[in-house]
C-alpha cells in the first residue's frame, strides 16, 4: 500500500513543479491534479469498496428472502404471536403489530416479495425492451424511427403515471403492480439496447460474422447480445432498486399488495397510523427497503467500474 501512495505524491509534486515553471499558482496545480488523475485513482479504490459492500448487502437480501421460513420462529401472518404493539425485544426483534404479528418475520418475508418485484419486474422490462431495442439499433431506418417514436409516447406518461393507468385498468393487486413496474422499465432497456446495438453494428466482429454468412438473427443473438451482457446486467441491477421502490410505493397508496401481505410498502402503510405510539412498525420495513436499494445501487456501480476497468486495462497503470 505504501508504494502507490508514494508514487501518487511524487507524481503530484512533479505535476506541481511543471505547472509552477509555467507560472501557475501552487493551489491551482493541486486542483488541476485533483480534477485529473488522482481523482480517477480514488474512484477505483472507491468502487472496489462499493462492489464488496453492495455485493454483501445484496447477498444478505437474497439469503433473507430464501431463508425467511427457517430463520424466523413465527409465521408472518400468525396473529397473537406476541402481545399487541409490543416494542422490539429478544423474542420479537422488530416488535409486533396491532394484531400481535411478529414484525421480524413479516419484514423478512417481505424480502421475498421484494426479490419477486425486482426479478419479475426487470424480467418483463428486459423482455419488452431489449429485443426491439437490438433490432432498432442494428437495422436502423424506418423501423428504428417507428419504434423510437413509440417509446416517446410510452415515456410521455411522467413518473409512475403509466403504472397508475395499468393498475386502474387491471385492478390493484401485487401482480398487477409488478406488471406495471415492468412496463415502466421497458423504455430504459430499449434505449440502452438500441444504443449498444447501434455502436456494435460497426464493430469488426459483427462485420466478420456477417461476412461468413450468419443470418441477422444469429448475429444479434449469438454475437451482439453476449457482448452487451455486462452493460445490461449493470443496468438491470441499478434498476432493480427502482422496481422495488415503485412496487412499494404503489402498495403504500393501496394500489399494489393488499393486507395481510407483508410487502414492505404495505407494511409501512399499515404502520403509518400508529407512528406516534409504535414507531417500530414504520421504521424497520423502511430501513430494510433503503438498505436493499443502497446495496443494489452500490453493486451496480461496482460492477460497472469493474467491467470498465477490465475492458480498458491501460487505466490500471496510471
Amino acid at each position, binding site marked *: 500500500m505504501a508504494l502507490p501512495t508514494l508514487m501518487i505524491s511524487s507524481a503530484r509534486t512533479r505535476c506541481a513543479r511543471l505547472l509552477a515553471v*509555467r*507560472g*501557475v*499558482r501552487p*493551489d*491551482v496545480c493541486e*486542483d*488541476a491534479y*485533483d*480534477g*485529473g488523475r*488522482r*481523482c480517477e485513482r*480514488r474512484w477505483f479504490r472507491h468502487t472496489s469498496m462499493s462492489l464488496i459492500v453492495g455485493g454483501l448487502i445484496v447477498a444478505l437480501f437474497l439469503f433473507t428472502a430464501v431463508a425467511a421460513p427457517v430463520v424466523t420462529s413465527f409465521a408472518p401472518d400468525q396473529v397473537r404471536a406476541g402481545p399487541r404493539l409490543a416494542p422490539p425485544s429478544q423474542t420479537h426483534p422488530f416488535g409486533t403489530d396491532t394484531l400481535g404479528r411478529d414484525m421480524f418475520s413479516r419484514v423478512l418475508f417481505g424480502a421475498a416479495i421484494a426479490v419477486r418485484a425486482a426479478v419479475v419486474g426487470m424480467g418483463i422490462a428486459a423482455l419488452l425492451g431489449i429485443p426491439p431495442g437490438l433490432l432498432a439499433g442494428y437495422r436502423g431506418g424506418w423501423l428504428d424511427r417507428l419504434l423510437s*417514436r413509440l417509446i*416517446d*409516447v410510452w415515456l*410521455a*406518461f*411522467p*413518473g*409512475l*403515471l403509466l403504472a*397508475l*393507468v*395499468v*393498475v*386502474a*385498468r387491471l385492478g*390493484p393487486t401485487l401482480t398487477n403492480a409488478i406488471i406495471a413496474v415492468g412496463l415502466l422499465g421497458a423504455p430504459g432497456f430499449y434505449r440502452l439496447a438500441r444504443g449498444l446495438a447501434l455502436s456494435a453494428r460497426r464493430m469488426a466482429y459483427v462485420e466478420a460474422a456477417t461476412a461468413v454468412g450468419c443470418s441477422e438473427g444469429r448475429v444479434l443473438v449469438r454475437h451482439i447480445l453476449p457482448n452487451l451482457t455486462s452493460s445490461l446486467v449493470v443496468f438491470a441491477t441499478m434498476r432493480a*432498486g427502482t422496481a422495488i*421502490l415503485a412496487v*412499494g*410505493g404503489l402498495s*403504500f*397508496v*393501496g*394500489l399494489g399488495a393488499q393486507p395481510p401481505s407483508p410487502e414492505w*410498502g404495505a407494511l*409501512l*402503510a399499515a404502520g*403509518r397510523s400508529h*407512528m*406516534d405510539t409504535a*414507531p417500530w412498525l*414504520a421504521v424497520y*420495513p*423502511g430501513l430494510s*427497503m*433503503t438498505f436493499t*436499494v*443502497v446495496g443494489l*445501487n*452500490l453493486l451496480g456501480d461496482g460492477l460497472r467500474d469493474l467491467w470498465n476497468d477490465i475492458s480498458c486495462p491501460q487505466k490500471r497503470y496510471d
Partner: protein
Amino acid sequence: MIYVARRAASSLLVLLAVSLIAFLALGSAPGDAATALAGDSASAAQLADLRADLGLDRAPLARYGAFLEGLVTRWDLGSSLVGGRPVIELVLERLPYTIGLALAAVTLAAALGGLGGTLAALRSGTLLDTMVMAGAALGVAIPTFWSGLLLILLFSLHLRWLPVTGADGPAHLILPAVTLALPTAAAVARLVRSGLLDVLGTDYVRTAHAKGLTPHRVVVGHVLRNGLVPVTSVLGLQLGHLLGGAFIVETIFGWPGLGRLAVQAIFDRDEPVVLGAVLVAATMYLLVNLLVDVAHGWLDPRVGREAI
C-alpha cells in the same frame, strides 16, 4: 424558430397518441361506467338504455373521436361518475396545488443539490466530498413514503413544529416539498459533481487560471456556466415528473393535488376522472419538456442545430 416549431408539432403528435392509449385503456374498462352508475340492482334493459345514453354501445374508436371532438371544441373531459361534476373543473381545482408543490420541490432540490455537488467537486477527494456523495447515495435510495413518514414523526409528532397533513398555508407545504426534493437533490448533486469535475479538467479552465483570474471568478464565470447546462435539463425533466408522479407524497401528506385525485378515482372506479388527470399530467409533462428543450438550445447553441 424552425427547431421550436418542429419540437412543438412532434409534442402535439405524442400527446394525441397518449390520449388515444389512455382513452382505450381507461375509457373501455370491463366494469364500465353504466354498471357503476346503475348499481347492482339494474336490469339488463336498463343497463342497455344507460349504455346508449352514455354512448358506450359505440365502437371504442368512434367514442374516442367524440371524446376528442368534445375536448378540442368545448374543453369537455366528461363528468365524474361519483359526484357528477365536470372532470375539467375537478382537475383545474387541483392543478395549482400540484404545480405549487412541484415548483417548491424542484427549487429546493436545485439549491440543495447544486450547493452539495459544487462543494463536493471543488473539494473532490476530501472528507466533505465523501460525505456529500454518501448522502446522495442514501437520498437516491430512500423511498419517499418512508422519508415522509420519518419527517412527520420528527417535525410534526415529536417537535410539533409543522402540521401533519392538509394544505392551509405555506407551513403545510414544507414537509411534502422537502420529501419530494430529497431524491432529486441527491441526483442533482451527483450530476453537478461529475459535470464540474469534467469541466475542471478542461484546457479553457486551465487557461482561465493561467491568465490570473481569481479562483472564484473561474468557478462562477467559467466552470459553473458550462458545467450546469445538463443540470437544467434534468431539473426540467424532474419538474415534469413531479407534476404527474407525486401521488405517493400527496397521499402521505393529504395534499390535494392531481395525483391524489387520480388515486382516489381509481378506488372509486371513476374512469373519466382518472383519464382527465392522466391527460392533464401528460400534457404538462410534454409542455415542460418542450420548454426545457428550447431553453437547452438557447443555453447551448450546439444542441438545436444537432437536433435538426
